[in-house]
Structure formats: C-alpha cells, structure tokens
C-alpha cells in the first residue's frame, strides 16, 4: 500500500525537480524525467492549429443546411424575404428601420433586414447586368463589414463575416472582368491589412477569404485576357459602375438569369416566351 505522504512527495518533486529529492524517490523521478525527455510530444505547431481549425470550420459549414436549399427556412427565399421586409415595414419598423439597417453589421439586430433588402433588390432586378452590378456592390459591402467589425474588435462577428465572404465573391463571376479584377485586387489589399489585426482563431477564416479573393481576381484576369470586354449598347461610361444606371438601361430587355449566384441569392424566373 502506497502511503499518501510518499505519493504527495513524489508529486511535488515531479513539478519541482531538484537534486535534493529524497533518495528513495530518486529512481522514480529519474524515470519520470526520462519518460518526459524521450516520449513527450512536441507542442502543436501554428500550422497544425490553423489546418485543423480551417478543417473544423469547413465541416461545421458542411454540416449546416445551405441557405439556398433550405426548404424549411422560408425567410431565406427571395419571395419570402420581400414579404418579410414588407411585413416588418407594416408592423411599424417602417422605412426608418429599413434605412437604419443599411449601416448594420453582422451580429446587429437589423442586419437580417439589410440582407433581406439586398435579396429583395436582387429579386427585383430584371436584367443580368443589373444583377451583376448589385452583386459587385454587395461584395464591397461584405468587405466593408469585415473592416468595420475588425475596427470594433468584434471577433466573433468578424469570423461570421469572413465565413460569408467567399459566397459574395462567387457572385462576381457574371460581372465585367476588368472591373472585378481591380475590385478584388483592392479586396486582397484590405484583407491583408485586416490579417495583422485579427486573433489567431480568425486567421483560418481570413486565409480562406484572402484565397477566395485572390482566386476570384485571377479568374477575372483570365476572363479579361481571354476575350474583349463586352460592349453594352447605349451604356453611358459616366454611370457605368452604378447598379441603378445599369438597371435603367436594361429594364426594357427580356430578363435572363446568370448562373453562379451565391447561396441565398437565387431567385425564380418566369420563363421568357
């Protein structure tokens, strides 16, 4: 039977190695020291930590139903988003709330209203060019949200904003490649700046966002180099970048729907005769 005092002494000497340990404990202390020296695993590297975190995030996201396919969550569908906004307005939140939501950030109470309004604008846009221009502006908004949240040190919300960023970049595939290339080059620069400020836990999400922005930039460059910039008849260069101008120019045309929209931004179309 091991006496408690002897066990306590061993335990104490393990934490405070000292040549003055009692003689009868020395062989056990030597063994403990030898075990530690030969078999103790090294600390996890930063790279391993980041790899596992990135994988964990992917698996958590994969385990969630994708918004665009979530049949049970009605508010994520464009038509229901419109109805939700209309309902919110009619219930007294009013246009002030809708206006106030424009400055909201992920994690804010009004942020779902902001995203709902975006989906509604997209649903109401009748042309691919109008859709593309809106998606360009939405991608810039996502970036601005990441910047604002970082400045406020809201790391949990930064993480969520970073996670939704790649979906915003996917939507740019239908926009003018030269403009997208310049836009995403700017995004890469901003995200590089943000990288130095976010905590380690958000680094994996940031790396994914950076990777997506850089890949999107490269893809846009490839598209630009492959074919000349498409001419839009009647386009006024002064108003080229504004969604409103593009919507106005294209409103008379038959709607066609571009592919590759991010989840949650798909909408149903009435088939063109």
């Amino acid at each position, binding site marked *: 039977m091991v006496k408690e005092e002897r066990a306590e002494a*061993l335990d104490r000497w393990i934490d405070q190695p000292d040549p003055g340990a009692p003689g009868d404990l020395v062989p056990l202390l030597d063994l403990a020291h030898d075990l530690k020296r030969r078999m103790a695993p090294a600390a996890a590297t930063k790279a391993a930590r980041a790899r596992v975190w990135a994988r*964990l995030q992917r698996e958590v996201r994969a385990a969630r139903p994708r918004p665009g396919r979530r049949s049970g969550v009605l508010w994520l569908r464009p038509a229901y988003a419109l109805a939700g906004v209309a309902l919110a307005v009619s219930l007294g939140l009013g246009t002030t709330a809708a206006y106030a939501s424009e400055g909201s950030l992920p994690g804010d109470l009004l942020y779902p209203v902001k995203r709902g309004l975006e989906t509604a604008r997209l649903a109401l846009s009748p042309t691919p060019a109008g859709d593309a221009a809106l998606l360009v502006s939405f991608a810039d908004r996502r970036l601005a949200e990441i910047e604002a949240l970082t400045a406020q040190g809201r790391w949990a919300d930064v993480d969520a904003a970073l996670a939704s960023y790649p979906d915003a970049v996917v939507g740019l595939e239908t926009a003018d490649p030269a403009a997208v290339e310049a836009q995403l080059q700017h995004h890469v620069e901003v995200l590089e700046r943000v990288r130095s400020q976010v905590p380690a836990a958000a680094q994996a999400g940031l790396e994914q966002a950076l990777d997506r922005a850089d890949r999107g930039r490269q893809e846009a460059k490839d598209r630009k180099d492959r074919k000349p910039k498409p001419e839009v008849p009647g386009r006024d260069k002064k108003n080229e970048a504004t969604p409103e101008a593009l919507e106005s120019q294209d409103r008379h045309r038959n709607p066609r729907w571009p592919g590759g929209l991010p989840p949650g931004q798909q909408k149903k179309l009435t088939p063109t005769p």
Partner: protein
Amino acid sequence: MNEQPQDAELVAKARRGDAGAYGQLYERYFDPIYRYLRLRLEDETDAEDLAANVFLRAYQSLGRYRERGWPFSAYLYQIARNALADHYRGRRSEADLDSVPEPVAPGPGLDENLARDEERVAMERVLTSLPTDHQEVIRLRILLGLSTEATARWMKRSEGAVRVLLHRALTGMRARMQDRSD
C-alpha cells in the same frame, strides 16, 4: 493547464452560435488535445484528423454538455478517447486502444538515433503493458505535463487518488523495465 472559470461562459456563448467563443475554447485546448492524440498515434495527419473530429463532435454536442465540476477540457479528453477507440476500430488495427503502433525506423547509419529510438520503443512497450489507468496517469501527468488538479478532473478522480495512482504507475513501470533489462 489552466482550467479558467470563464470556460462555462464561452460554452454558453458557443451554444448560442457564437463561433468566436468556440474559437477561444479551441485556442485554449487545442494543444493538450492534439498532443494527447500525437501520443497515441504515430501519424501526424491522423492526429490532425482526429483533433478536427474531436472539436467537431464537441461543437455538435455542446447542448448536451453540463459542467457540474467536469471542465470542458475533460469533456474534450473524453471525446478524444472515444474518437481514438473509433479510429482503431475503423482501421481494424490489431492494436487495441492501449497499444502503441510500431515506430518508424530511422535512416541507416544513424546509430545514435537508432539507439535512442530503440530505447523509446522499449519504453513505449513497457508503458502500454501497464494497466490502463496507470498508462493514462503517466501520459497526462508526465508526458503532457498536466497539473495534478487537471489530471484528476480529466480522470474523474480526486487529487489524492491521482498522486497515489502515479506513484504506483511509476513504481510498476520501473519494475517492468528492470525485468526487461535483466
């Protein structure tokens, strides 16, 4: 190993979908969990796979976790042990949970490394021949360097019981190593 009181707060936030709170728990406990898995697995990739699995399982079962004196790190440790058991079952390894895989031999000509590796292998074999709780107390207290308090919580024992167990485990291991060298 630092069992900080705010774990419960972080768990509560993570339950409400706060990914940042879970990120903090991950930052806090990734190292001991990963190192524990590295102790049990020869392959670094396997250890990363299982570490991701452990933190995913923990995240998905946050709703079922109740602290009540059982810290979150101990919960992760329990999940890690279960994940290891599943890993060995899945691989149909001849080894059970408490066995150790064959180490990778060092390159030819490295006599010193070879000798060191042989000593380590001999040590591992003796360790894995001990009763399971003796192996675990040595792994947690000596090889991972956890405090007696943390070891006790992870093993769901009193600190006094852990001290006595460690003394017995080291005494037993030393005796078996002497038997091998005789």
